[in-house]
């Protein structure tokens, strides 16, 4: 699968409190969460973000709280992929589970700026810009996670398994 989108650039250690501040956790509705996305660190994000945009960030993206509201908010806001230097483990797992592709690429944050257009091939991990000036490789997605994506997220993967004998979630 290939994605192309406008970049929203963030620093290292973007924690899930910054993605969805806790005061908005009194709801799990997608539209409400989309409106709260980056509310404090990037006011106006939820009005300006467009369907298909991408987040590019530094190291340890999604650290802190386990709140799945964070990747849900990003996806509901229109973000179609996150490329970061590294991810905190709970966020990484949550993102795949809800069908938001995330890729690890330590060089991406230095190569892209806010508003740039980024192209990524999820199958190969190739990250480029439309002009062809940038060519980076992301860490390949582990085969086990690819299975979950291929099924359409963990719920679909599990539903499929529940119908089979010897189910392995």
């Amino acid at each position, binding site marked *: 699968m290939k994605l192309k989108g406008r970049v929203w650039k963030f620093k290292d250690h973007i924690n899930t*409190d*910054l993605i969805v501040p806790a005061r908005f956790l*009194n709801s799990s509705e997608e539209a409400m969460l989309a409106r709260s996305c980056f509310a404090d*660190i990037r006011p106006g994000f939820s009005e300006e973000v467009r369907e298909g945009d991408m987040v590019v960030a530094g190291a340890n993206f999604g650290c*802190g709280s386990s709140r799945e509201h964070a990747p849900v908010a990003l996806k509901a806001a229109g973000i179609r992929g996150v490329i970061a230097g590294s991810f905190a483990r709970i966020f990484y797992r*949550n993102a795949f589970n809800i069908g938001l592709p995330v890729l690890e690429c330590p060089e991406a944050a230095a190569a892209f700026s806010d508003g740039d257009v980024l192209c990524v091939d999820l199958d190969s991990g190739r990250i480029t810009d439309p002009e062809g000036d940038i060519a980076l490789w992301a860490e390949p997605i582990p085969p086990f996670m690819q299975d979950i994506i291929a099924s359409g997220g963990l719920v679909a993967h*599990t539903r499929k398994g529940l119908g089979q004998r010897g189910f*392995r979630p």
Partner: protein
Amino acid sequence: MIPPMTITEKILARHAGLDTVRPGDIVRVDVDLALANDITAPLAIKVFHALGVTQVFDPNKVALVPDHFVPNKDIPSAQQAKGMAEFALAYGITHYFRPGEAGIEHVLLPEQGLVKPGDLIMGADSHTCTYGALGAFSAGVGSTDLGVIMATGKTWLKVPPTVRLLYEGKTGPWIGGKDLILHTIGRLGVEGATYKALEFTGETVRSLSMAQRLTMANMAVEAGAKNGIFAPDPVTRDFMADRSQEAGVFLESDPDAHYEQSISIDVTQIRPQVALPHSPDNVYAVSDIPPVSLDQVFIGSCTNGRIEDLRAAAEILEGRKRARETRLIVIPGSPRVYLQAIQEGIIETFLRAGAVIGPPCCGPCLGGHMGVLAKGERALSTTNRNFEGRMGHPGSEVYLAGPQVAAASAVLGRTGGPEEL
């Protein structure tokens, strides 16, 4: 012959039905206890229903604890709490805690004997790693994973490599588990243990109480770790004996187990610690920083809301008053902690010191309610995270410390240690 394993590897192998596992293996494991709270359960329940199943895998192995926004702070949080209560009733969840029974999940479950050595516990809360204090494997997950676990009782895990932390020496005055873990996170960094197991070992930790161990394991995730774990020992056995019919399964790392890294920590040099804004790894001795004035001090949370923590704070606050311009909020971590604090006269000490006492819940830790900070305000807190805006306005600041430093700072009206009083 079975190759040597760490305690984390042994627990994962047992729950995967395997003789042995190695770091990097992806294993399917049986879950002994699945936990969610009033913020994460609503999403997990949606997932559970989307799966089309008709029952939870075991009504005795699911714990639902309303603790984040309770007593309900507004209409949407009331709706979430109600949905969780209805789910608990409909599916016969044994360990659903009603208001008056509930406390902070990670204070409550060990206290109730619901987590045991050798168990594998998955919780939709990042501080689920707390139960490693008992010699269990426990890790935080998101709501989708938790929803699937509620339905199937199983999940998949990648076996983490283990970093051994070796604590040596006798601690100085006023040093508790919070100081040891803040010091450790300061050394490791907030992503120093990402995806890894932290194993707390050494002569120093053997003499730590269970409360101190719970404080330390609680913050393993602040270094990015998947789990933090202590080998169970006589302290664990005594703790379990008071709370459960079952002692659990006592495992320990083999002497020749493989560690990705071993880090020695000489605790004799550690002085009362504080983490400055806005990161739990921004750690200094409180006596080494220029003092800053404080608008609020909070004592409580899943990190430091146990009776031992309240006792430590009360010892310093006894006969003293908080500074006039500094608010002091104390929240016992569970109804049992609250009652004991009343019986020991600790609550009276706090009230006489000028504290506000909150009902058992997460309180201001995550900026939800009961002590939210205004723009430009500064708090010192016994909690685990001091991210930008964590306790309120994005322009507020949080300093993290243990209960002794918190109590002393409340009296001083600024950051400072107990030795200054």
